[in-house]
């Protein structure tokens, strides 16, 4: 096995393990930390595929901003240990069976065709570099780029407006 294969298997094992621990851990803060480890290992996959810009953006946006937002919200909410975090055992077994069957079906469908034999270009290639991605993004895809900025502005306005206190709540909290 060559070095890229060994690296792939190490990082894939770390990704799947931390994904499982995210779903299965009782403490929500532990779940968030395991999800951060998952994002770091997916960034490792991106580095293996020489998608450098996406690796760094994944760490900055997902692990650095979104997960910190989750952590702040969980810390605001003061979660008790007595709250029931998991569904009933019947639902757990049914969900596991359904997702296992889904996995089995999709893997079998994938193995029918020979698309799986196509090789990947690992650790080489120029399309993941910031310069090439930027030149395509600003020339061919400039309209979605500008629309993304409008989307962000609307999300920001929505988030600020939703968390304002109404006049009634201000009066109640001032009493």
């Amino acid at each position, binding site marked *: 096995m060559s070095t890229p294969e060994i690296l792939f298997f190490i990082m894939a094992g770390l990704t799947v393990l931390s994904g499982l621990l995210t779903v299965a851990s009782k403490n929500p803060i532990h779940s968030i930390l395991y999800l951060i480890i998952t994002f770091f290992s997916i960034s490792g996959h*991106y580095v293996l595929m020489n998608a450098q810009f996406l690796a760094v953006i994944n760490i900055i946006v997902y692990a650095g901003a979104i997960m910190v937002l989750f952590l702040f919200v969980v810390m605001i909410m003061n979660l008790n240990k007595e709250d029931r975090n998991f569904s009933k055992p019947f639902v757990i077994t049914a969900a596991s069976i359904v997702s296992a069957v889904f996995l089995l079906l999709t893997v079998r469908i994938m193995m029918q065709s020979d698309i799986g034999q*196509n090789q*990947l270009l*690992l650790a080489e290639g120029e399309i993941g570099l910031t310069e090439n991605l930027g030149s395509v993004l600003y020339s061919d895809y400039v309209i979605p780029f500008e629309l*993304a900025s409008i989307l962000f502005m609307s999300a920001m306005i929505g988030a600020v407006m939703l968390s304002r206190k109404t006049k009634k709540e201000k009066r109640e909290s001032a009493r």
Partner: protein
Amino acid sequence: MIPISYYLFLSLILFSIGMAGVIIRRNIVIMLMCVELMLNSVNLLLVAFSKMHQAKSPGTDAGIEGQILVIFIMVVAAAEVAVGLSVMILFYRKVYKTDVQFLDRLKH
């Protein structure tokens, strides 16, 4: 060089873990986090396919659209998390619980 089936396996496993997580967990924060896990598995698969297209015609800009789509998926996921978490905090201010079984106000 790795065949693409490795990344297809990995992405499908992560996606089904996230899907099972959304069904199994009852805490609304963790359900949102499992949705993020599903989005990330799709991102990984998109980048893998972009590298596969580049391997077929190396030296050109063959598969770059996949990575640009990943950028936009991250954009939409970030906006969705911001708005979703603020809705969730609004809900928490009313009920002071995070269990999704209390999200049944439309029933009454």
